[in-house]
């Protein structure tokens, strides 16, 4: 019969309409109030309207989300290198950047004119940046990372859209807070919370690190402190998770992290120290001869 197809289709529309109200009733007026309601509305079981009431509520972005990059600097409470750059101005990010939006002025020793591993200036033109994430992916020092803050509208693009070093720099703790899992995996891969080369460069510049930073950076990775922190994070996440079964399951990386440090072929701290001592001895012998 003519028209049956239309009616059949309209029944789908009607179902959608009804479902939206049923959905509203289900939450008993608390639809927008509770965190777990949000998760359900935005999950696979969602039935009614899927609108997010921006800016009263925002979809938090996942860890790997990438937006205009930032530079990692040491935390303000770091024992000896507070606020110093992780960047060594090696220029790989500027070279690998597809739209070429990164400008780096390599640091230079004022007397000898030799390059020093600190950028003198660092610029990113965020109008050109295409948020591809290559700089973060290929940085050998994990010193540039993709940010999560996407609310960057401004009134004047000529004044505010070239980010300089001051504007780009964010502490390491910020990175661990926006991407805890990724930050941990990276630390595991480089064998310590701080990059061994940065410690090396630091020593080369004539300063000696307190044993605290060197040792603790190694130990932290295996220490109970990190696991505890991860657990706390997991519990915090579990609180917001709707299903109670999730509360018992901490994020998976923790479980596999501790053995992976040694299993991944990383050199142990003692081994690294021994090799460095050997190298230093050779160097000294060469200088003496």
């Amino acid at each position, binding site marked *: 019969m003519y028209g049956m197809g239309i009616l059949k*289709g309209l029944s789908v529309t009607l179902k959608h309409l009804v479902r939206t109200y049923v959905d509203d009733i289900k939450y008993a007026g608390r639809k927008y109030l509770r*965190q777990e309601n949000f*998760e359900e509305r935005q999950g696979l079981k969602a039935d009614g309207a899927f609108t997010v009431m921006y800016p009263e509520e925002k979809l938090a972005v996942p860890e790997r*989300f990438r937006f205009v990059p930032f530079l990692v600097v040491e935390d303000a409470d770091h024992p000896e290198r507070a606020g110093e750059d992780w960047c060594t*101005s090696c220029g790989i990010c*500027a070279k690998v950047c597809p739209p070429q939006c990164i400008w*780096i002025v390599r640091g230079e020793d004022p007397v000898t004119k030799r390059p020093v591993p600190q950028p003198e200036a660092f610029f990113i033109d965020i109008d050109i940046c295409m948020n591809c994430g*290559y700089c973060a992916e290929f940085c050998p020092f994990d010193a540039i990372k993709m940010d999560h803050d996407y609310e960057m509208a401004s009134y004047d693009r000529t004044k505010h859209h070239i980010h300089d070093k001051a504007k780009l720099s964010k502490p390491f703790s910020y990175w661990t*807070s926006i991407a805890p899992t990724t930050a941990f995996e990276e630390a595991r891969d480089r064998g310590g919370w701080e990059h061994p080369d940065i410690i090396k460069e630091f020593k080369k510049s004539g300063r000696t690190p307190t044993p605290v930073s060197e040792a603790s950076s190694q130990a932290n990775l295996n220490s109970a402190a990190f696991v505890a922190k991860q657990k706390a994070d997991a519990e915090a996440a579990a609180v917001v998770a709707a299903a109670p079964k999730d509360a018992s399951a901490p994020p998976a990386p923790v479980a596999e992290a501790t053995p992976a440090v040694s299993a991944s072929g990383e050199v142990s701290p003692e081994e690294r120290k021994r090799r460095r001592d050997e190298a230093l001895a050779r160097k000294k012998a060469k200088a003496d001869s």
Partner: protein
Amino acid sequence: MTDQVTLAPERANTMPLENAVDYLKRKYPDAIKDDTRQGYSGVIVDRAHLVDVARTIRDELGFNYLSSATAVDYLGVEDSMEMVYHAYRIAGGSALVFKAQTARENAEVPSLIEIYPGADFQEREAYDLYGIQFPGHPNLKRILLWDGFDGHPMRKDWKEAYYEEETKPFDSRWPKGYVRRAEELNVFGKNVRYPADLDLSKLSDTSEQSLYSGMGLGVDVEGIEDEEGIHTDKLIVNLGPHHPSTHGVFRMVVTLEGETIVQLEPVMGYLHRNHEKIGERNAWNHNMPFTDRLDYISSMSNNLGYALAVEKLMAAGARYQPPTYRAEVIRVLMVELTRIVNHYWAIGFLLNDLGAFFTPALYAIAEREKILDFFEATAGSRMMCNYMRFQGIAKDLPERIRSVSNLVNDKLRDFNTLDYLTELINERIPRSIDELDRYLTDSEIIKERTIGVGYLPPEMAIAYSAAGPLLRASGVPYDVRRAEPYSIYPELDFDVSVRYNGDIYDRYLIRLDEMRESVRILKQILPRLERTKGESTYAGNKAIYMPRVPIGEAYGRVENPKGELGYYVVSQGDPKGPQNPWRYHVRAPSFINLTPLGAMCRGQKVADVVAILGSIDIVLGETDR
């Protein structure tokens, strides 16, 4: 656009490729020679015999589907230009590649439009960007750029405005990277070129007039009367470029007689940015995120096509390792999800074009969101994924799809990735496809608007090089995943969807079919994901940020949701220094699928044009490049 299309004979030829080349060489001993350059394949045809050879290739050897025709400028290498043709058999198999060389000055290659009507737009593009003349082409004018444009930008000696350096990375960025905006350079300085005889006071744009003059106006209509004795003037109407039904900035100039289309001329290029020139400035790795911006609905598939093309080249190198099995599994997972995303979008907006304003589209978009959430958690972006790499993928799937609170009012979510995927693939997507089916398929309004409208017969579809759903809805079961399999498709169980009526309704139905087939593939992917958990997703040393690519050429193609996406890449790089593609060509399905638009619309009503265009499913980011 030619009105008379001579069609290839139906007879299938199964002669193996080597024998086919031998046959050609025997038949044209003087005109054909092997392409013996290092890393190259195929034959070089003397351009005086090109038309005859092409006719033999199509009629006697059965390579009746011209996938790609493009030009390369070998300035400084051989000081010649070259047209490269990739012809396939519609029954499947690999390509017969033939090339025609011409001098750079007064470059001229005979047009193949009579043999392969699908070469129409591609030859116009080569003329536009390379300045190669195609004698025999009935409508040889610029296609992407405007008529007053000076020069042919893809030539190697052409410099764009704000030209900085031949190749990236630019020296000004490091180690003395003092920032400045390109626009702060004097725009009238040395970066901008004008024709020698340019007189601004006499500047007038004649492109519109020349366009209209080809549209059948100026004909004396006084004497023309139809059988009812009514005088009808022909009328030119511009549909677009600023019109939501064109899915972007696409313009169709139509000549109407009453409400009936007499002639339709597509005008494009409003979004042109010379993607290929950018691609040649870029290093190999740089291009990956740029491919996201081609067909921005399905960036994962674009990534895969480019990765496959460059991997073909790299395979000749010593350090090359093929992608790991898990990488292949994840690649297929991603591209099949992308196909579903794209078809949701295509069906939703086809209904928009038919007048069902946004209700079906939003139902489809709501489902698409669930897939994009997964993309965002895995690749870091919802649409510009930039996820594939040569020899693998960027990163393994995350353990959990988990968000982190950062801004005020942020609301969190936390799902187990595999559970999420399992539920998405086994329940959510099939349910929503069924719902779309129930919602739209039987509707009498849709049937009356679409059945029998925009008919494209199968032999025309092949001749015009149509691809993807457009080709398969015309009854040609051609799918690159089966015709020339890549990745792990050979071990997956799925059918090539095909519909036989070749109208808008069948193009809608085939998209539903393909989504169901994609779900079928994804269901086979899930156990493979479980099985390969923890395995490496990248073969080789991932820290290499400037991969070395051996000298040669490669054509990599994938079955994109919109049709066959091909990348023709040529490497001439110094094997030790930094490397850039010598040629980076994109065979864009949206672009070539527009070739039969005029033929499909002729005789239809003006309101149907919008629906026909919607059924082709174009994206202007890819059409205009």
